């Protein structure tokens, strides 16, 4: 990217904050809420309906062909109930990544929105935190909506299904923080397309639409290293309220991903916003 050597900012943690933040994340969030009404409703609405349409077509269409499948803990569940939690995890991922990559890239390079913000006492940390907050807020609305659809269709069999909502936020946080860091390396829209090239196969193979046991063991290990698989499995266990040791592993995976993603974004903050 730029040849600028990023000098370390002095004074430890406090010095780092002085360089990157005025602590006014609130103003960025305030702007986010103010423009919600004028945003592209087609994108917002399609973000909600996409998993619903998948659920209706695949869940009930393909479901009619395959009948019941093996759910968490070896209990049989309908095909629709099998894929519904996976679709929620996928939609949390997609929404968060859209906001933290395409949206951030566009506002940075084309709308020049961040240039305006960063000319004030806001720092890059304030802008990044505010934007991630807005992405999570939108993710929250989607998660509530889709969980309600799942419940209305009778596909959630446990009160634990409500926990899918905060877990969707955790998944979104992991992907959003990672996505923003990755965006700092991109300079053209063409490079942004690589994100989709990674995402689509991850969606198709992460045990979303069929069990991971369909693959040879070596492939299974690869899939189990990918974040979406952990999100999918975690959601699926919550939807029926079945827990085992792997539940903790999935949860830990996403907590770790979020921590690493935030650390990564934090390191890339100045490269992303200050050029």
């Amino acid at each position: 990217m730029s040849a600028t050597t990023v000098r370390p900012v002095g004074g430890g943690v406090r010095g780092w904050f002085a360089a990157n933040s005025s602590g006014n994340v609130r103003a960025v969030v305030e702007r986010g809420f103010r423009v919600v009404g004028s945003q592209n409703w087609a994108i917002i609405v399609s973000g909600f309906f996409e998993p619903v349409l998948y659920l209706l077509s695949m869940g009930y269409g393909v479901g009619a062909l395959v009948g019941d499948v093996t759910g968490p803990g070896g209990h049989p569940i309908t095909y629709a109930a099998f894929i519904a939690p996976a679709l929620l995890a996928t939609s949390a991922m997609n929404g968060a990544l859209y906001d933290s990559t395409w949206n951030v890239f566009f506002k940075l390079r084309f709308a020049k929105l961040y240039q305006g913000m960063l000319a004030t006492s806001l720092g890059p940390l304030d802008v990044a935190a505010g934007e991630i907050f807005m992405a999570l807020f939108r993710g929250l609305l989607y998660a509530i909506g889709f969980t309600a659809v799942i419940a209305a269709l009778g596909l959630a069999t446990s009160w634990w299904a409500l926990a899918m909502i905060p877990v969707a936020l955790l998944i979104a946080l992991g992907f959003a923080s990672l996505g923003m860091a990755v965006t700092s390396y991109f300079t053209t829209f063409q490079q942004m397309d690589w994100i989709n090239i990674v995402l689509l196969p991850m969606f198709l193979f992460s045990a979303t639409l069929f069990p991971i046991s369909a693959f040879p063991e070596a492939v299974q290990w690869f899939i189990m290293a990918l974040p979406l698989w952990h999100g999918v499995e975690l959601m699926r266990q919550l939807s029926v309220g079945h827990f085992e040791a792997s539940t903790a592993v999935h949860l830990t995976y996403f907590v770790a991903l979020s921590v690493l993603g935030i650390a990564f974004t934090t390191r890339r903050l100045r490269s992303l916003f200050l050029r």
Partner: protein
Amino acid sequence: MPVIEAHALTKTYGELNAVDGIDFEVAPGESFGLLGPNGAGKSTAMRMIGGTSLRTSGTLLVNGLDPETHGPEVRASLGVVPQTDNLDPELKARDNLLMYGRYFGLPYSYLRPKADELLEFAQLTDKAAEKVDNLSGGMKRRLTIARSLINDPSVLLLDEPTTGLDPQARHILWDRLFRLKETGVTLIVTTHFMDEAEQLCDRLVVMDHGRIVAEGSPASLIRQYSTREVLELRFGSERNAALVDRLRGFATRIEALPDRVLLYAEDGEESLAAVRRDGLEPVTSLVRRSSLEDVFLRLTGRSLVE
């Protein structure tokens, strides 16, 4: 304490030295200019002052603080007018001012009357509820300038402030900037318009290819690098260059441009008379005072606006 102290300030993009080791200081209340053609590195220097672009090397202090390590604190007292307007297209005109003030952490009780006052200042009161996209280029520029004043800055960075404004709007803006200067605001202006530099700047640096090639007040630069007057002669494009040698005796210095020949002299009319006595009759002739344009031509061999 100087408002700005830059030493060996450098910014490199790949192989290109956009800003190539410049030194300058700006005193409080001063109106300081960066004059230079496109690509000279003016905007890059401005972005480094605001701490929104990281320098490659050198030191820079703004109000005694390094904008890279104290960006938010430095910018709290800065007003920034970027070269290209970056108004928030999703907000209405007045809301642009309010939200921008919120980014500074200012309360609405302060911002509401301030926004109205600034809309008045920018003659946009009747456009308060208009979407930014519906404003003309000149209106957007005025709104951007108004926005830069929302936090009552003590230092105002204006990057080509009057680009896109019509002549009348330019003069109104210059007048407003004068009034701000009278209240003690330090102005830092970049421009490639010499008349703007002459109007606005107490002192300026002439930049070319990332370097400072001269520094001084407009008048002293003209005194130092040019003569009092300039005689512009046109003999037709094919004859201009051919006549240069013959004209040399009539001026301190000569510049042959494609469309005209410039004769630098203390008394232009007298030189013109001498040229005519020598039997040369230009198609057109014009005597004018030297300007910063002539200073730039002298220093770089090129025109400021190409």
